[in-house]
């Protein structure tokens, strides 16, 4: 049964972009490698990959400059005076004027932009207008919270999504297939905040199995070292706290995982369907290999490239902070950090925050590009 390759609208748009980039960045050679020169090739491959990574990193610079300009422009285009946003209803005309001056908002925009870039180049992300604390220090705990949550959510999404996709491709048109795809469809369309509240109601209030909010036991807080609590608790040897952190991760990560999980499942299914019909699969089956083996070893490897692309994009999106999930679960991540900043027109925080998110997005996709070669040795980096 023919099925569109692109599982979702979001996936499709991004996918096209990926293809273009792929055409520029790498070439696929169909020729088989000769066993005698394999070792030499591997070494060369490593060098090429490194060179490719470095080139990609350099290409990041114009991207980041463009990004910073766009962000800088957009936030200044939003109506609303930051001085008034900070002082609120208790503001006086004098205090407003003074605050504008001390924030440098009375200066022309290009002056503001260049002084911002100058600070950035010297590694200074700026100072939060609202709290007066340096952003480089403020942002990491939020980033760490988001990374931890996104990682666990992606783990769930990948493991469940891929297996669901494989299962439904393998047993195409069976009851399992239908059920899996209904789950995937519901997963894509379910509002995250609603799912989050239902989870809290069911697993916290009614069943009492899991905590409903936060990252750790409020009354027995984790001593932050790296701010990735799964690591911190292990580093300080507090297994009981580690367990608490895991329990706190369950509900928000499941809520966050649903959409990527569904997209991955659908992408895996369509990709697998194509591969399962190819001749070499039939050959493998004919040689008497078990179906499980054929599916997971032979088929998945070939079907995995488009899935990997989706995983990369979704990870990038999750790392951008999931404001709804963070709001419902009181999760102090990067999304709510920037959202708060927008409310208060905290320009430096918005600028630097979005820049860091953009950087992470690009880095994750670079990693994905590099991973392509792991799954498909025919892919070479030039």
């Amino acid at each position, binding site marked *: 049964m023919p099925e569109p390759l692109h599982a979702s609208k979001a996936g499709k748009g991004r996918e096209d972009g990926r293809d273009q980039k792929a055409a520029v960045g790498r070439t696929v050679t169909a020729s088989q490698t000769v066993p005698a020169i394999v070792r030499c090739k591997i070494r060369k491959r490593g060098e090429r990959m490194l060179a490719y990574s470095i080139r990609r990193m350099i290409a990041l610079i114009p991207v980041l400059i463009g990004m910073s300009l766009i962000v800088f422009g957009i936030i200044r285009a939003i109506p609303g005076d930051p001085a008034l946003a900070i002082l609120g209803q208790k*503001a006086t005309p004098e*205090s407003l004027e003074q605050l504008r001056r001390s924030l440098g908002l009375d200066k022309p925009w290009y002056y503001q932009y260049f002084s911002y870039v100058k600070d950035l180049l010297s590694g200074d992300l700026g100072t939060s207008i609202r709290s007066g604390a340096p952003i480089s220090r403020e942002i990491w705990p939020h980033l760490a919270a988001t990374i931890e949550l996104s990682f666990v959510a992606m783990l769930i999404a990948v493991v469940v999504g891929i297996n669901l996709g494989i299962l439904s491709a393998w047993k195409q048109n069976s009851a399992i297939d239908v059920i899996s795809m209904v789950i995937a469809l519901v997963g894509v369309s379910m509002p995250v905040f609603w799912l989050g509240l239902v989870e809290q109601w069911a697993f916290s209030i009614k069943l009492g199995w899991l905590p409903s909010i936060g990252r750790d036991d409020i*009354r027995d*807080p984790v001593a932050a070292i790296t701010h990735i609590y799964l690591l911190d608790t292990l580093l300080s040897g507090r297994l009981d706290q580690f367990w608490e952190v*895991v329990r706190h991760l369950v509900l928000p990560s499941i809520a966050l995982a649903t959409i990527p999980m569904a997209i991955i499942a659908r992408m895996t299914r369509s990709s697998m369907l194509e591969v399962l019909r190819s001749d070499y699969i039939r050959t493998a089956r004919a040689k008497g290999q078990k179906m499980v083996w054929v599916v997971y070893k032979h088929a998945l490897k070939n079907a995995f490239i488009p899935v990997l692309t989706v995983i990369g994009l979704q990870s990038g999106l999750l790392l951008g902070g999931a404001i709804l999930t963070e709001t419902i679960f009181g999760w102090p991540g990067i999304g709510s950090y920037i959202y708060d900043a927008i409310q208060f027109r905290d320009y430096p925080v918005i600028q630097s925050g979005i820049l860091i998110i953009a950087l992470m997005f690009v880095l994750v996709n670079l990693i994905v590009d590099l991973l392509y070669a792991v799954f498909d040795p025919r892919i070479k980096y030039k």
Partner: protein
Amino acid sequence: MKRFFWLAVVVIASLTLVLSGCSSSSSGDKSSSGNEKGGNKVLVFGRGADSTSLDPAVVTDGESLGVTKNIYETLVEYKGQTTDVGPGLAESWDISADGKTYTFHLRKGVKFHDGTDFDAEAVVYNFDRWKNGNDEAKFAYYVSMFGGFGDKSVIQETKAIDKYTVEFKLKTPFAPFLKDLAMSPFAIASPKAIKKYGDKYGVDAAVGTGPFKLKEWKRKDTITLVKNKDYWQKGKPKLDGLIFKVIPDNTARLNALKNGEIDLMDGVNPSDLKDIKNNKDLQIFYRPPMNIGYLGFNVEKKPFDNPLVRQALNEAVDKQALIDAFFNGTAEPAKNPMPPSIGGYNDAVQPYEFNLDHAKELLKKAGYPNGFKTELWTMPNPRPYMPNPDKIAEAIAHNFKKIGVDAKIQTFEWTTYLEKLAKGEAPMFMIGWTGDNGDADNFIYTLLSSDAIGSNNYSRYSNKQVDSLLKKAQTVTDENQRQELYKQAQEIIHKDAPWIPLFHTKPALVGKSNIKGYQPHPTGSDSFVDVDLAD
């Protein structure tokens, strides 16, 4: 690929373990999530947003002041749930006959959390720091309550007479002075700590004399305070710790309360109150109102320059029906521009009765027999004095239509909204005010004097008689005489009707039924010094 396969198996297996493990440990957890972890009485307060800074002098937001209230203390303190003032760090005080000199006798043996002594020099240091601040944005409350920095400030001089006596010299008699001093922003901080931390004070440290000490601040997450064991009030505080936890979503916060992860919360959806009332494990607290939600007219814009039109619209609003529909018992109808809990409230004012026929007649008299078209602006987001402004605006517009006034509803993003109101762009608008110090001046003068046009007098209402009454009331120190002046002003304002005073909300807070001694204060900053958790 084989490796991937096994990885997948392992991960699935471990996830299954995690989930099943959660259910098996559930019984043990429920009990430990109570308040007794490690034998400590720790209360967790759930709230919607984080603090900005823990230096009370530099903040204006309630989320910051609610925390600093428990770390610091002021010279005089509000008594119980009122805005009357009583002794605080000052045991007693004398006021000179001309009302220009205040002498405070300080409590002895009080220490800051860093071990330094609280004395007259510390008081002088704090007041001089604000007065010489020269940064209007930084010490915003000092400027708005005391009129400005340096020579502009009503406080001319603060002087240490001896180790435990401080004298304040004022430029003019300034009646709200004591009430201002009781405000959380004017709490006394350790001079040593302020010097030590400089710009980072309030971000990295907060050192006062209060019942709790700052232990840790995890931004956008938790602020952990612990008991000050050397607190000057013996046997207090009763709690061993106090934690403020940010949970932005109202429903999620209530879920966390029901699940025992927090003990007390603000920001309850009125629609949840019925369910909460039936829950034996929970109790509801009401904060006495110190706010006003109102609909203002721009009296410079036609047709609202005509008092008859304003009176007619006043008669077209059924406040009680609005309260029944939207507040679930958490509000009272308003008739004056300030809440009844504040001294000087004029209870003799007769509110405009809801009477559509009479309203129509008034419009006819004003020259608008067929009504008119206009705009009603409303706030984009809930405010403490109005939980769902969009719906309330719709209901009001619906009533206006019945007398022929066709009001189109308009809204803007919050900061833009305030900006446009201050510029006088809105013909008719929903807004409100939360009081700072519990003084009538802080409502009527701040919101309706000619001096406030361009800032908080969004109606651009200007009445010479009212202005002179308000100015006079600022200088008279005799409380009864002051109250009389405010009562007169309220009568004039009632007739001029620059607003439709709508409601005073008394926000609900919900806590576990074992909380004892919690008294939400009208200012919104609650002291937990007397709060206890029963076993």
